[in-house]
């Protein structure tokens, strides 16, 4: 709790710390839901002059009255008031941005992105690329230069699908009244244009719209190219990497995606840039196709934010969109229509799926029986509900979309299949782990469970655990992931298994359309069998 006063004497009381960065800490403010306070660290300013400059800069920004909300959504955390303590400027207030996600959560992919968007596909990235370009163009139209345009400063509003820039006090601006220029003085090296790489001291650097265009192109590249670094490459020559300055690739324009660079090759895991529509690839070329010698000359050629907007918009439009295709094999794979084959499937083939190896167990597994008994009680309850569900469902799997609409039902369904039974198996699983490892990694428990109806005879020779795995094997064939760790681990060990879909997503969108009648019946049959045998 600390008290500060605004430019016109408004009292602000900071309450809870929301986050801390290198130069300051952000707090909630008592009585203001939509405002937060950023308080600078005492080390931020070397002397009173630096502090005075920042105070004038903040005043200038506030005087600019930038409409920071557009179409009902905040686009920048623009300063609203200056905070003083004993007459000294110590920070400022800004609109609260209600998101914890950053742009790298979108371009990184993986679990985090699946959590945000279970139905994520490439079009989402295109939309964010469009919004980012739009925002840069918007700020430039007010003669605001972002300067330190790095991924830490770019938040994503995942509900609106828009971009929010959160660190405005480093922007490069001109006071609309006094015409005093407040330059940007910091940057993240990996995002900087070649002309800034060689400056050394960024306090003397000249950030421009063109330097923003360079960083913008890197962000868009990462979004569209599955988080590849446009300046990353496999170094084929025998150079001592330690002698290479950190961002030499940017200085020299070593972008293997837009030109042939001697001694450099595109990493195997990276997607082929030919996947991109020609006009988009051309825009990357305009920005990244240069050498150490031509870098300066080619600055004016860089793709502007406006050009990006125009080029990206057709691909960001909702489906049915003639510019886009959906992969016939995997409905989550969306790509530009000129591709004859799915680029995401091709990437998948190229990069062998990493096989997780269980790490060392930090603490011995508890053998306290309570942990076993409680889940058992849970299972009995869940199975009872699950049974009811089957009756309700009439045993039919086809066209039952409506029955999944009810979340309650959905959860029940989920739990009964995958979630609750695992704890009871904990001990037995760890005991038998070695045995599992010795199994042939490309075998199935029931090889024909997708092509014929299985019988009780097939199951009699199997242990309870194997029946459970056999049932889940049907889901695993289609690439469903599993919430239950040991089941996931088991299938991860199979050569044929490709973990592709989050469980919720699979059950919602894939299951009905992908399972054939054998599979549907067999799942039900085994579930019933397990049910009967466990009682």
């Amino acid at each position: 709790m600390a008290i500060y006063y605004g430019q016109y004497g408004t009292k602000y009381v900071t309450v809870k710390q929301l986050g801390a960065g290198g130069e300051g800490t952000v707090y909630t403010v008592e009585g203001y839901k939509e405002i937060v306070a950023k308080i600078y660290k005492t080390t931020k300013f070397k002397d009173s002059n630096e502090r005075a400059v920042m105070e004038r800069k903040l005043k200038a920004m506030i005087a600019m009255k930038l409409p920071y909300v557009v179409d009902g959504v905040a686009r920048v955390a623009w300063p609203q008031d200056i905070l003083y303590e004993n007459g000294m400027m110590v920070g400022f207030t800004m609109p609260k941005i209600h998101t914890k996600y950053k742009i790298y959560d979108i371009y990184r992919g993986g679990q985090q992105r699946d959590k945000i968007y279970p139905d994520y596909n490439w079009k989402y990235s295109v939309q964010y690329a469009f919004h980012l370009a739009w925002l840069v163009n918007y700020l430039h139209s007010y003669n605001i230069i972002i300067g330190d345009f790095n991924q830490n400063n770019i938040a994503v509003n995942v509900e609106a699908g828009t971009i929010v820039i959160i660190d405005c006090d480093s922007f490069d601006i001109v006071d609309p009244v006094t015409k005093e220029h407040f330059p940007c003085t910091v940057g993240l090296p990996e995002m900087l244009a070649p002309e800034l790489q060689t400056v050394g001291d960024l306090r003397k650097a000249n950030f421009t719209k063109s330097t923003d265009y360079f960083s913008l192109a890197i962000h868009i590249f990462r979004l569209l190219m599955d988080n590849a670094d446009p300046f990353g490459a496999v170094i084929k020559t025998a150079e001592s990497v330690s002698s290479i300055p950190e961002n030499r690739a940017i200085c020299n324009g070593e972008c293997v995606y837009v030109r042939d660079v001697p001694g450099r090759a595109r990493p195997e895991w990276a997607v082929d840039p030919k996947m991109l529509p020609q006009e988009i690839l051309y825009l990357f070329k305009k920005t990244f196709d240069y050498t150490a010698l031509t870098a300066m000359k080619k600055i004016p050629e860089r793709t502007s934010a406006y050009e990006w907007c125009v080029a990206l918009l057709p691909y960001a439009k909702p489906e049915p969109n003639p510019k886009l295709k959906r992969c016939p094999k995997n409905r989550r794979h969306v790509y530009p229509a000129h591709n004859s084959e799915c680029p995401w499937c091709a990437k998948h083939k190229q990069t062998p799926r990493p096989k997780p190896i269980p790490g060392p167990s930090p603490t011995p597994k508890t053998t306290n029986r309570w942990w076993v008994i409680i889940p058992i009680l849970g299972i009995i309850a869940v199975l009872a509900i699950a049974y009811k569900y089957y009756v309700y469902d009439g045993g039919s799997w086809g066209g039952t979309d409506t029955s999944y609409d009810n979340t309650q039902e959905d959860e029940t369904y989920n739990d009964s299949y995958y979630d609750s039974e695992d704890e009871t198996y904990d001990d037995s699983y760890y005991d038998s782990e070695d045995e599992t490892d010795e199994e042939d990694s490309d075998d199935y428990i029931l090889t024909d469970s997708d092509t014929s109806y299985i019988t009780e005879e097939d199951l009699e020779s199997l242990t309870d655990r194997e029946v459970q795995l056999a049932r889940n094997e049907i889901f695993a064939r289609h690439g469903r992931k599993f919430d239950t760790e040991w089941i996931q681990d088991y299938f991860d060990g199979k050569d044929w298994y490709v973990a592709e879909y989050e469980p919720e997503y699979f059950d919602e969108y894939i299951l009905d359309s992908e399972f054939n009648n054998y599979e549907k019946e067999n799942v039900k049959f085994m579930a019933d069998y397990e049910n009967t045998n466990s009682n």
Partner: protein
Amino acid sequence: MFKSKQEDLLPVANQGERHIPAVLLVDISGSMAGASIDELNQGLIEFGQALQEDSLALGRAEVSVISFNSEVKTEVGFRPATDYQAPRLAANGLTSLNEAIIEALNAIEERKAQYKEQGVSYYRPWLFVLTDGAPTDTNRESEARNRLQQAIRDKKVVYMPMGIGNADKTKLQSYYPEETKSKIVLQANAVNFREAFVWLSNSIAVVSNSDPTVSDSIELPETPSVITVGI
């Protein structure tokens, strides 16, 4: 090349981003028994917490934990920080700090070879050494010291010694090259780990890509410049 002891290492994630490999070299010798080993285990947990708080770093850092007493053992092979789990360690035996340093430098080289093969860029690797600082494998001390000093000089590693309990600070400082001015020894706590990661994703005022002859005149922060707390 090197005989890999890092058998359980996991594949590199987010290959398009610049990685920061970090080795935590931890002392589990007999002299650490009692309060010191608790402090160490707590430090390993706090390291994980500091990572969790910085989502950019979490997607870029790679962690390996190597313990040493009479033997040197890879507790956690290199893996994406998202997969890091603090091991719980018990103390006994001698203090093979020197062999451990050699092993850690080897492990770093090995991981770097993987990065290069895959076209993954990386920051200068971090070597955290958490110890009370009284090595018993003196026969390997000059080898370990020479290699570490050379690695620091060649900018191949950032050495971050962290004292545990009544650490022998002078001993830990002796692994810095003689010419290093501030031979910082830190304490293994959440604050210091967190500061290290803040440094990783912070915007900075000075970049180091100019002509090497020019950049030598610019004083660059060698270690996270914000860390100044000694013990």
